[in-house]
């Protein structure tokens, strides 16, 4: 039998001035199942809380309703007080008679009637409250960072430097990601590799970081604190443990004319290769599809050249199973394929290139050793046209969003070009110059004012070749007239797009993604580094287009989320979670689809012989956030939400 204590707070005059607390206490005192009904000036004060505790002990109360201010103010206070008096804290509820009653009504009698209704309804709820226990989830203190670009490296280092284990997985043969491809970086024009490669080395040598390159995450199971991850180690055909990275094999490889991915097709590589000279690990892999031996069964030049016998053509992919507590997804981006813009001639004219290719041209370690030379004939271009928003902000052919970095890197390209090719003339077609960021606007001003970048506001309609020149026709919308420029080279500021396999990958990991394939944050403003799946965090451009400082900042933020999770052996969570009644569940699994957190799994119920008797939904307490959308969906009324059960809400309505 319930014995509910009702504590009616005057809140000084805040409540008592409008609500006749004495009448309320009397009426509630006569309510069935109420064991004590008292009023007091300030229940949140120390003596007030003490009186609640005393009343719980003296009357053996089974539940408590504090009629006072909003639960958003003092629910935690009074639940703690109840716990101190030996009552399960979840047996305490707040009836809000201040913000939603005394403060908003003029008529004292009406306010008193309303207060009585509010409290009665809450008493009826509390009668049906359950003694909930916080959920404890054990935490494996080992993080998985997926993606070895700057975001992944930063996250891995931050976590590792705090003393926690990290597994860093990169699918390319080397760490580095896109940042390793860049020449100089805005707005400081420091050399990208000069700042990147030390971080790569640091990550690879860190005692707390296990580096898995040329590896891909195959499967993720489990939940926060307890993920089970399967990683595919792709066959390198080179024994990584014995290889010293001497590079003999690379020098000898007869297959030399392969297009280098790292150089964006502008440079060449061999079939056994490292993507770039500073690769980490600096140990080659064999490109199976283009290796002469794999193709013809003959060659083995590399085998002969290797002094340490590291080449193994029989090598197979291997799988590693990992137990992981938290995951940072930092899988980065790709640049959009500009071939969709036929009118710009990308793919048709060798000297129409994209921004990333320009980076390789401008990079000291690039195929031209940092000289800006035309891909078609190796000549120095006297005039370059840069086209911004080649794909971004273009719902018809490209993407609707702004890629955020292009204004800045185009300004940088114009500057680098001016520094490297004296007298070179640049024209930049732009829609807007978006240079918000520390030192960014100053940077673009410098490009215009010191390096004489010629900004033309308008879109380009067509690029064609004429007399060895690339003719660029566009509009100057400020002057309101068409423009034609003869250029030696055209650089497209290509849109940043998600990795082509981003959506599939999101499904493997179990996180959400938007219409483009960028991964969804749990809340755009308040939880921007968490995915909607507990224990999985996002870093870098896989979430949305970002520059280096933003990627690094988000990576550090993710790392701090991981470290907060790892700060305790067990994760304690509010027990407001869904629970399914497997006996009545029909297994339609609509709840699985409706759950925003992938917290509901499909479960087989087996008999003793292991035969499936029926299939039901099962809520993972580690993932459920307690929204209750599943409960409302459930036609058979099988799923319920602790703390807001169907019985409780029914009683609240019936108690009105």
């Amino acid at each position, binding site marked *: 039998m319930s014995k509910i204590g009702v504590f009616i707070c005057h809140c000084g005059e805040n409540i008592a001035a409008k609500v006749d607390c004495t009448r309320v206490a009397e009426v509630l*005192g*006569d*309510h*069935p199942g*109420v064991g004590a009904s008292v009023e007091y000036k300030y229940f949140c004060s120390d003596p007030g809380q003490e009186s609640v505790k005393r009343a719980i002990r003296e009357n053996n109360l089974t539940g408590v309703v504090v009629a006072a201010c909003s639960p958003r103010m003092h629910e935690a206070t009074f639940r703690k007080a109840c716990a101190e008096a030996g009552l399960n804290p979840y047996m305490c509820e707040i009836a809000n008679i201040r913000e939603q009653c005394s403060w908003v009504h003029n008529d004292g009698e009406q306010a008193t009637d309303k207060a009585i209704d509010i409290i*009665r309804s809450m008493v*009826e709820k509390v009668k049906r409250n359950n003694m909930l226990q916080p959920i404890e989830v054990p935490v494996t203190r080992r993080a998985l960072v997926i993606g070895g670009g700057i975001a992944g490296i930063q996250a891995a280092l931050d976590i590792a430097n705090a003393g926690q284990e990290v597994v860093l997985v990169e699918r390319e043969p080397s760490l580095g990601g896109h940042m390793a491809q860049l020449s100089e970086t805005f707005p400081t024009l420091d050399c990208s590799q000069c700042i990147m490669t030390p971080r790569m080395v640091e990550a690879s040598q860190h005692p707390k970081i296990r580096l898995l390159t040329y590896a891909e995450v195959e499967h993720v199971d489990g939940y926060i604190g307890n993920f089970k991850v399967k990683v595919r180690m792709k066959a390198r055909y080179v024994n990584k443990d014995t290889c010293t990275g001497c590079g003999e094999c690379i020098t000898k490889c007869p297959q030399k004319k392969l297009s280098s991915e790292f150089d964006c097709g502008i440079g060449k590589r061999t079939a056994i290769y490292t993507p770039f000279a500073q690769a980490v690990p600096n140990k080659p892999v064999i490109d199976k599809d283009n290796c002469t031996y794999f193709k013809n069964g003959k060659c083995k030049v590399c085998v002969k050249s290797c002094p340490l016998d590291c080449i193994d053509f029989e090598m197979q992919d291997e799988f590693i199973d990992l137990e992981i507590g938290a995951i940072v997804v930092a899988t980065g981006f790709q640049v959009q394929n500009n071939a969709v813009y036929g009118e710009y001639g990308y793919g048709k004219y060798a000297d129409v290139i994209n921004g990333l290719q320009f980076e390789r041209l401008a990079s000291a370690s690039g195929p031209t050793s940092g000289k800006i030379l035309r891909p078609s004939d190796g000549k120095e271009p006297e005039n370059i046209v840069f086209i911004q928003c080649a794909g971004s902000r273009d719902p018809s052919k490209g993407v609707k969003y702004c890629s955020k970095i292009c204004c800045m890197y185009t300004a940088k390209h114009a500057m680098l070009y001016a520094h490297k090719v004296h007298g070179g003339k640049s024209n930049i077609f732009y829609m807007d110059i978006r240079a918000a960021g520390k030192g960014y606007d100053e940077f673009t001003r410098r490009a215009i004012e010191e390096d004489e970048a010629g900004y033309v506001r308008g879109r380009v309609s067509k690029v064609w070749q004429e007399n060895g020149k690339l003719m660029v026709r566009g509009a100057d919308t400020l002057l309101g007239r068409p423009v034609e420029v003869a250029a030696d080279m055209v650089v497209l500021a290509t849109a940043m797009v998600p990795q082509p396999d981003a959506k599939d990958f999101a499904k493997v990991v179990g996180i959400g993604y938007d219409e483009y394939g960028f991964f969804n944050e749990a809340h755009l403003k308040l939880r921007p580094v968490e995915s909607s799946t507990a224990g999985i965090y996002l870093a870098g451009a896989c979430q949305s287009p970002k520059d280096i400082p933003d990627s690094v900042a988000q990576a550090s933020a993710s790392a701090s989320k991981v470290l907060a999770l790892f700060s305790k052996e067990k994760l304690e969570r509010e027990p407001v979670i869904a629970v399914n009644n497997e*006996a009545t569940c029909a297994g339609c699994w609509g709840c699985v689809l409706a759950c925003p957190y992938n917290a509901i799994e499909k479960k087989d119920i087996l008999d003793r012989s292991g035969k499936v008797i029926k299939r039901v939904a099962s809520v993972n307490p580690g993932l459920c956030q307690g929204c209750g959308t599943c409960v409302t969906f459930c036609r058979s009324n099988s799923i319920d939400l602790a703390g807001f059960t169907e019985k409780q809400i029914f*009683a609240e309505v*019936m*108690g009105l």
Partner: protein
Amino acid sequence: MTKILYTDKLDNCVERWRSAGLSVIGPVRNANITAYRPVGSAADLELSQILPDRSIKELFFPQTEPMMRYSIKKDAINTEECLPPVGPRIIFGARPCDASGLAIDDPLFGWDYKDEYWFNRRNETVIVSIACTKSDEFCMCTSLKLSPDSTKGSDVLLRPLESGKGWQVEELTDRGREAFKAIAELLTEGAEAAAPTAVVAEKFDADACSEWLRNPENFESRFWKEISVRCIGCGSCTYLCPTCHCFDIQDEGDTFTGIRRKNWDSCSFALFTMHTSGHNPRSTQSARWRQRIMHKFNYFPGKFSANSCSGCGRCTRQCPVDMGITETLQEISKLSQ
């Protein structure tokens, strides 16, 4: 010479009965369905249908009925008993199978204690049945040792005249005679011939069926599964049946007050025998169908010496999957030979 009630006098009869303080009830068609309902005048009566879609039992055993009101106070629960409505009434135009159904259920409602909800109504109701001159393929009263002009359960039996202009009146009980006193002057003495009653062929041998059902060996027979494989477990047969009498008791209300109600229940429902533990002794639909047949033709007659079926055929007539007692008992008849 017999008493005759002519149709054109019926309106006057209704008026007389009403002014004598009786509420008059009879088959009324409304919203695509015919059921026994109060009538204001003879024009409301729908007497041409073979039988009303809904049975007569709901006039004595409504589908939902308050038994008790309660209010919850701090230290006590106050209760107040609900009794059925009082006042004499006359049901005009019942079918003999419906009237028989009531007589079949009387011992059930009175064997251990008198169910006042049932008997208060029974004692205040005069039942005037009209013998059937029409039947359909679902009628099976004759297989239950009843007939289209059975008098069982009726206070007065009317036999339609050959001319269709009225009925021969046969007063069966004191209660019937009493009610017809009020309209005595509207009756005519005459010799007009009654129309022949409907011919309802015998469809099964109920005695043989009962015997087969009593044989314990047949309880687990494969027959039950085969005969009921298409049963979807709805309760329409039980709810339309004039003799099915199972009910459930439910409390409905809010925090402060509520009503305890008696509601129809059906052995066709999976939940009917479901235990709180989740175990269900009648876990299959075939077990539920077997229970229904066993109850009507074995257990009930064992206790009350009559089959719990008056042969109205509604179970089959309305079955969404074309099942029913007729087919089952026909098959059992075959098995028992």
